[in-house]
């Protein structure tokens, strides 16, 4: 992965108890065979006490010898002398200050203490300075920021059976999220400039006649202001500094001409696929200044609520809607299969 420019990888669940930790542990085991130093950090505490697949108490991450971890100091104190404490960070959690450590023997470690995206950014940077080839970020499901392309270079999404009560429901929701997440990054230089300007000024920025124009409005939620700012002119593109919802998209759909809409990144997009499709039919487009590089989707057919989907069927159907993104089953597929998925083979 490092040869493809991926230095940090987020593992994010599409729902609570999706099975992230299991995926992370299998990834760790798979990486161990490659014998390279990796960094491990978790964002947020999401309240999962039990592992989805084993239904045992949620396991700590099992890291190979030489791995780097970032965690709260008291958690390191409780793990014996098999750790070399490397450096303090500026991050302080209710559990204590966050420290970077290297595993001298390999073993279990609970990762906690980093609760904000800025913290992950700092830790990723420090891991890389310490020589990590790749940093794995365990992203709590409600910490969408972990997948932000501004925080990590790439992401793996975990689809758990508990995303919906039926397999049809799981597939439908997965398709919605994955398609939204993988909408294209704009390559148009004017549109990219507009997105950058929108963010720098916290204003809507329009593109017309080959030039960008900062508009006197910061959000589509301020409907009257936005209407006034956009009215009477045909905009080729509009970049937003913040998030976009169905309501915001309807606003554009009411304009005479559907523009190309640009968002900062997929974590800012909350528009349903139904509305996005309608918008595209009207001639509009939706793209990102910086997109998420989704390198794989992991599935977990077992729900902690007690129902299970056919693993083969789930994998096939999820693979259909995620194509060409590789899909693997962390529990059933062997380590070689996982590595093959990740390397695109």
């Amino acid at each position, binding site marked *: 992965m490092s040869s493809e420019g991926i230095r940090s990888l987020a593992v994010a669940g599409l729902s609570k108890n999706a099975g992230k930790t299991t995926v992370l542990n299998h990834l760790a085991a798979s990486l161990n065979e490659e014998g390279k130093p990796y960094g491990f950090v978790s964002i947020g505490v999401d309240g999962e006490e039990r592992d989805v697949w*084993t239904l045992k108490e949620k396991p700590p991450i099992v890291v190979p010898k030489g791995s780097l971890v970032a965690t709260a100091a008291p958690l390191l104190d409780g793990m014996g002398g098999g750790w070399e404490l490397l*450096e303090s960070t500026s991050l302080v959690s209710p559990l204590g200050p966050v420290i970077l450590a290297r595993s001298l023997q390999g073993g279990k470690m609970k990762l906690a203490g980093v609760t904000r995206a800025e913290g992950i950014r700092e830790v990723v940077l420090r891991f890389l300075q310490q020589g990590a080839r790749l940093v794995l970020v365990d992203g709590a499901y409600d910490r969408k920021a972990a997948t932000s392309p501004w925080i990590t270079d790439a992401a793996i999404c975990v689809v758990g059976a508990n995303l919906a009560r039926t397999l049809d429901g799981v597939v439908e929701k997965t398709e919605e999220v994955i398609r939204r997440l993988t909408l294209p990054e704009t390559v148009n230089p004017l549109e990219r400039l507009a997105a950058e300007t929108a963010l720098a000024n916290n204003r809507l920025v329009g593109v017309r006649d080959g030039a960008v124009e900062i508009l006197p409005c910061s959000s589509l939620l301020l409907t009257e202001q936005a209407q006034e700012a956009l009215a009477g002119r045909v905009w080729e593109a509009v970049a937003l500094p913040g998030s976009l919802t169905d309501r915001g998209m309807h606003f554009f759909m009411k304009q005479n001409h559907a523009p190309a809409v640009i968002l900062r990144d997929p974590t800012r997009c909350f528009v349903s696929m139904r509305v996005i499709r309608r918008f595209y039919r009207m001639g509009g487009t939706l793209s990102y200044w910086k997109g998420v590089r989704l390198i794989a989707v992991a599935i977990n057919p077992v729900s902690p609520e007690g129902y299970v989907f056919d693993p083969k069927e789930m994998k096939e159907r999820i693979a259909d809607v995620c194509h060409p993104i590789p899909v693997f089953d962390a529990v059933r597929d062997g380590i070689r299969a996982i590595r093959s998925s990740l390397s695109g083979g």
Partner: protein
Amino acid sequence: MWMDNLTRQAIRWEALWLRFQPRTPMGQRAKRSLSPFMPGEETEWQACLVEQEHLLEAFRRDPEWMSRMEIHLSKTPDPTQTVRMLESGEIPKASDWFRIKSFLWHGWHLCSMVRNEIPGFRLKREASEWKRVLSLLNPDPPLSPNFFLSSAYDSRLKERREQVEKENRWVRKAEEQAVLDVERDFPIQQNGDGEWVVDRRSPHFLDMKNDSRVQLVRETPFDGVFCPVETEVLKAARMRREEANTDLEAVEHDVFQQLAETFRPYIPFLRDAILDLATLDVQWARVKMAESYNGTRPKWEAESYRIQGGIHPLVAESLKEKERTFTPVDINIHRGVTVIIGPNMGGKTVVLTTVGLVVALGQFGFLVPARSCSMPLVSWMTAAIGDAQNIREGLSTFGAEVRRIVEAIKRDSTGLLLLDEPGRGTNPVEGAALSAAMTNDLAKRPFWTLQVTHFREVLQGTEVTVYRVAGLEGIDRFQDREDEDWEKALEQAMDYRLLPWSGESIPQDALVIARLLGLPSSILQDAWKRIGNGG
């Protein structure tokens, strides 16, 4: 209290204080308890300032040295909690030792670097002592900021770790053998959790269920999950590993205890070291702030404040944003009363706040924003500046002002009183009389008063030093330009310099300024008549 909140507000102290940011927790703590130098501490005060001059020279001489110092300061943790643990007989844990070691590592570098550049810098402990204590936590060369329980601490550690590793190998071997035995007979492969997930429809599912080497741990409608049954060999290996781990933990505990015993005699060193770094950090932060306004060292002078080229950095920045410049303040304030007169909008109040800020920075041991400065150390400074003060207490401008002057003249120690147009808040006749009488009284008191006034009565019959704002020049060229930006025109016409006054007539600029600001000429002509001048 050296200066009260109203004085702080008047001179905009808090905004500048925010820019004074020590990098370490120790420095931040020292900042919170920082107090001004007081009369009698002139030698320490000058030593503190000279040290900052040396730091500033070192900054300029070697920017790379400065960046390395910055990095070490920003990474130095606070070991105070661990020192307290040692004092109370507790045994610090790994993260506590790591904190101590990081502190020693960065402190050693900082101490060495400062000593190399500024040999006379006041530090209680030498770099060699830092290194010696750091070495206690670094039994294996080379020195590093990392901490781990090296086998060099205790020969038993190596032995116990080898034992754990040996037992681990036995366990792994027994586990692998158990897995190989099963996977030889069935076409399956273990996952990362050490389990076999088998499709219930596969032909070997039932065979596995009946195989004594594996046990079914979970079942779903689609899969069965199997794990190896623990063999006697494996059970024994795991038990031996558990015992080896327990032995290792006991030795690790001994090592931590031994480390604590080794370190207790060094508690006085650690206390001094914490203070040294706090001092260095505070000095560093002082210089970083002074660097932003090109600060100079205030020198000590018993009887007068002499400020040349004084500026208020915050006012200067605001003006710069408006593409205007700050006219530096040149003033000598002798014991007694010094008065500033001049036109409205002539910057008199800015002079007061600038003097107040320069003096306060000086007393708190900072290089000051001036081309040169000499000053006494005094026991207090009070400013009565601005109309809004004490409004919360329900006092009028006049009442608030009188109360602050009363508080000041009650003091029998030396201080600096800054007064902005005393008496302006009441009727002109009584205001002028009161202002003149107060000035007369203040001139006999043993402290320094700097006062801005419009009342000529203040200048009569009292021994005061007087400055006047140079005032308006060439204003006539603006008078017919209706569309002119009057504020800018006024600023261009106003000479904000302070000039010594020696009895010449005081220019009456208020009506000229009113004209500039657009007051109708009929009103102005009427006003000129009333003061007996045809205009």
